[in-house]
């Protein structure tokens, strides 16, 4: 076990010698529920997204909660007739759920994007895809944000 006492400091990336976490991070008990349900409802206009088609690729355990690599891929022919238009990315237990929205079109060729995100604690990352026919698909994946390690 190798406690990482300075995680809060480490999370406080950026200019200024500040010691408050970027996103009010705590590795303790789950934070109060954020606005992810509302954000999904707003994005889908109240429709319940179906499971499937969306694939979220994130590490099971984050190496650094400040910069967690994330790839989202949505299965689609990406033709004029059938394509993905938007993909909403949310974090279930950051103080605010919003992470990013990706916009695709047939010119994208494939609905796939990769970026790096901030996760304040262990939580689910959620992706909701909107198709051009107005249907929605969703996936989620848990990412553990840890403070200690056991180096075998």
């Amino acid at each position, binding site marked *: *076990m*190798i*406690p*990482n*006492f*300075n995680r809060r400091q480490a999370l406080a990336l950026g200019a200024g010698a500040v010691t408050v976490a970027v996103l009010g991070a705590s*590795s*303790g*008990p*789950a934070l109060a529920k954020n606005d992810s349900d509302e954000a999904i409802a707003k994005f889908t206009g109240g429709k319940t997204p179906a499971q499937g088609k969306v694939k979220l*690729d994130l*590490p*099971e*355990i*984050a*190496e*650094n909660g400040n*910069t967690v*690599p994330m790839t989202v891929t949505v299965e689609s022919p990406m033709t004029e007739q059938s394509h993905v238009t938007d993909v909403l990315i949310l974090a279930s237990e950051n103080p605010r759920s919003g992470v990013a929205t990706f916009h695709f079109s047939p010119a994208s060729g494939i609905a796939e994007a*990769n970026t790096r995100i901030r996760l304040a604690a*262990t939580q689910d990352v959620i992706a909701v895809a909107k198709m051009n026919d107005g249907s929605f698909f969703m996936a989620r994946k*848990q990412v*553990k944000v*840890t*403070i*200690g*390690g*056991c*180096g*075998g």
Partner: protein
Amino acid sequence: MISRRELLQVGAATAALAPGGWSRAFAQQRMTQADLLRFEAVGNVTLVHLTDIHAQLMPVLFREPSINLGVGDARGHVPHVTGRDFLDLYKIPAGSAAAYALTSEDFTALARSYGRLGGLDRIATVLKAIRAERGDRTVFLDGGDTWQNSYTSMLTKGQDMVDCMALLKPDAMVGHWEFTLGAERVKAIAEKLGFPFLAQNIRDTEWNEAAFEPMTMLERGGVKIAVIGQAFPYTPIANPRWMMPNWSFGIREEDLQGNVEKARQQGAGLVVLLSHNGFDVDRKLAARVKGIDVILTGHTHDALPDVVRIGRTLLVASGSHGKFVSRLDLDVRGGEVKDFRFKLIPIFSDVIAPDAEMAGKIAAIRAPHEKMLGEAIGRTETLLYRRGNFNGTLDDVICDALLTERDAEIALSPGFRWGNSLLPGQDITREDIYNATALSYPAAYRTTMTGARLKEVLEDVADNLFNPDPYYQQGGDMVRVGGVSFTIDVSQNAGHRISDLKSLRTGKPLDAAKDYVVTGWASVNEGTEGPAIWDVVMRHIEKRRVVAPGEAGRVRVLGT
């Protein structure tokens, strides 16, 4: 399926040795090098696997765990079977050489009879014998955790191990503790190895591109063999990330599937994953990634006398500290494994003759330090060991030393799975302490933590070990504690396993809001300050002369 395992012909077939019943000389008479090497060859490929030697050039005493709990789907399955249950499962007679090598049963008595295992010079003998027999059918693979955790490996930044391993001519290797030498050192060594240092699961943090070769193609016995390498996925979490800031690891299951498919497209008739994932991760992975014939597992230090079959994939677990070398013969035809035979070869150091070339190399490396390393600084009255899910007696000594020398209420010591054992009455040498503590970030820190923070740390490490999904586990064992007691329910969810956290000094529950003075070592934080842990432990033992550790901390385990 019939078991295609070669029995450990070291007393297993005959009556077992009664613990302490025969002299050491008599016990050794019963074994021969030929017995240990005997193997009825099969097929056209022989894989030889050595892993997690932790820089132990010399033979060791290493007690296997008496507690190794499995959770979720792994509960009750190997490698989470220990002691008598393990002997029953594999039909190994109690008191036999195999029982001694593979379990903690009667360890002290059997160690006195059967002696040490390992030694890279003995391993060299075994490897040469296999190569002599199997010629160009042989593939030798190093599963990593090779370059660190002894005095000379620390002093030479892994060069001693690199030079010795070079004599064994591995076909490929993977890494974990290697990375604690720092990214630059790893790259510098890897470039000059003469064989590939593989990692399909490491990318650079800037452009998300492969940092190492993912695989190598070999041709042996007329078979095209793809060896794909997997570094320990959680190296930058379990070990200091600042030592490898530009590399991102992870399991990267999809990349692996892609590499397997690429290997098959390139004509591989056999696909081998040389893995440092840990056994439970590999078991899960074997069921999800299609097309891997063999996974040579590592990291979790499990020694299994038979392969474990998951679908069409064979999992091999070759132990640690140089105690064993695995030999897996495969009959590969038409891109399929048609038959196989396996033996986990125990390296009984008094039975297998040392290879002269390797012995000479090791002696030369050790010569300048031999006198210092051999110096006795005290003696132990009890068996000292580390391996096991919770505090081992060796950890109790370390925690006692930390509490005393760093004047703290609470001590934390990492649950590393490396570190040798010492028998009751044995002198404790400087080398024994280095073998339990040698690493590149040794500062024994002293800090304060609230009771709540300490619980958080314990919960966090517990989840790294007991999360029911192996992909969220990091291997290693539970953090060892001094000065406190707690209850752990391994069946609970993250954040709810630890309770009843009390100070041993006062007998009172820890106050969530109160600050406590905490000491520990091997912090992953850059700039951690404090004396080197080996100095702390040596000072403590030199003062005591005789150690007879009691419980430095106390752990009650529920939910098994």
